């Protein structure tokens, strides 16, 4: 049987002339093969009608330009600033340039929502709930229900390691940002949304979210969250949602 991937290439014209001729010849004899090809053609027409190039391509071009523009906007000025700093600092301010020789911690880089630098930012995370036509931010003790679709966002002021997990009323832990039980490296910058929304299940009472960060790598040892949260080398931010049943508000 001719595999799907080969039929796809037959339709896009990416097979060699000999392979394409072979499929054409077989299709004349084979009703099933002919039907499969027809089904693919019908599906292609349906896809192009549902997602027409006139709509999707401009969207993609815009996103591509945004990505290119982001690189130029961010990296070129940063590079230029870094070069100027290295060249000029020792000349103009010898007392400051001596700091290069110190072993002090790296200066914290803080960014506002739009990526511009600000001061005094703390590590933070937010939970948003999808609504019919938009989204709403949830605060401490906000009411939530089974089926609510939540989006988590976070920002950190400097390079660090972090993880986000939640504990529900049944004692079940769900990792939202981690490599299994290990923290992942986080980069400073604007708010970052996790790739996926999280749908609340019917666990009762509460869902408590934890954003745990540390300057060094860490992991949850043998599922022992308590030890991690008590560890003095980590910083913990948390947010608790009150769960109510869908049938009745409590």
């Amino acid at each position, binding site marked *: 049987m001719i*595999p*799907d*991937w080969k039929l*796809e*290439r037959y*339709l*896009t*014209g*990416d097979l060699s002339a000999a392979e394409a001729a072979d499929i054409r010849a077989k299709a004349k004899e084979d009703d099933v093969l002919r039907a499969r090809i027809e089904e*693919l053609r019908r*599906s*292609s027409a349906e*896809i*192009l009608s549902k*997602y027409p*190039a006139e709509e*999707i*391509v401009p*969207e*993609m*071009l815009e*996103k*591509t330009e945004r*990505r*290119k523009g982001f690189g130029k906007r961010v990296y070129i000025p940063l590079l230029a600033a870094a070069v100027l700093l290295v060249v000029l600092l020792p000349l103009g301010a010898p007392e400051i340039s001596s700091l290069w020789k110190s072993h002090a911690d790296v200066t914290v880089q803080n960014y506002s929502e739009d990526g511009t630098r600000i001061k005094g930012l703390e590590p933070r995370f937010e939970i948003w709930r999808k609504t019919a036509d938009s989204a709403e931010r949830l605060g401490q003790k906000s009411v939530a229900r089974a089926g609510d679709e939540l989006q988590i966002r976070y920002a950190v002021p400097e390079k660090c390691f972090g993880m986000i997990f939640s504990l529900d009323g049944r004692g079940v832990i*769900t*990792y*939202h*940002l*981690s*490599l*299994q039980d290990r923290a992942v490296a986080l980069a400073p910058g604007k708010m970052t949304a*996790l*790739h*996926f929304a*999280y*749908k609340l299940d019917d666990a009762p009472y509460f869902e408590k979210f934890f954003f745990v960060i540390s300057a060094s790598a860490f992991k949850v040892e043998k599922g022992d969250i308590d030890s991690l949260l008590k560890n003095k080398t980590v910083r913990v931010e948390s947010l608790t949602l009150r769960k109510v049943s869908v049938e009745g508000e409590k």
Partner: protein
Amino acid sequence: MYRTYAPMVLRRCRFLLKDEAEALDIMQDVFIRILARKDALDLSSPSSLLWNSATRLCLNRIRDKARRGISTSTDECLSQIADMKDERDEYEAENALFRLFEGEPASSRTMAVLHFVDGMTLEETARETGLSVSGVRKRLRALQAKLKGLEVEI
């Protein structure tokens, strides 16, 4: 290019992800990455590039969802492959956006899908991924121990 190849890419993503919205998202991502690198790519016959890129991005999505405890309707074989440790993973995590198409060898996870799921022969998998047949066999055998119930073609 969109009109010719988007249906193929979307069907690929639908098949792997079983979710229309996510499939559409990954399909766009595949084209965006190619657009961003179009000057450096040979796009005279891009089926293979698009197919493998879609496979790779879908596997990443399946793996990320599993790690966040989000259930997927993906079949067990794909879930296993998606969750495998891959020697390209760390590289990819660091250079996710633009290095996908710079001639690096395909990840072993992508190879596993081409061979075990798509039914490509070792020769076809090798041609797709730019490796020798023995190289593909070696890498797939190394993964086989982690993939229950699957056998590499001899």
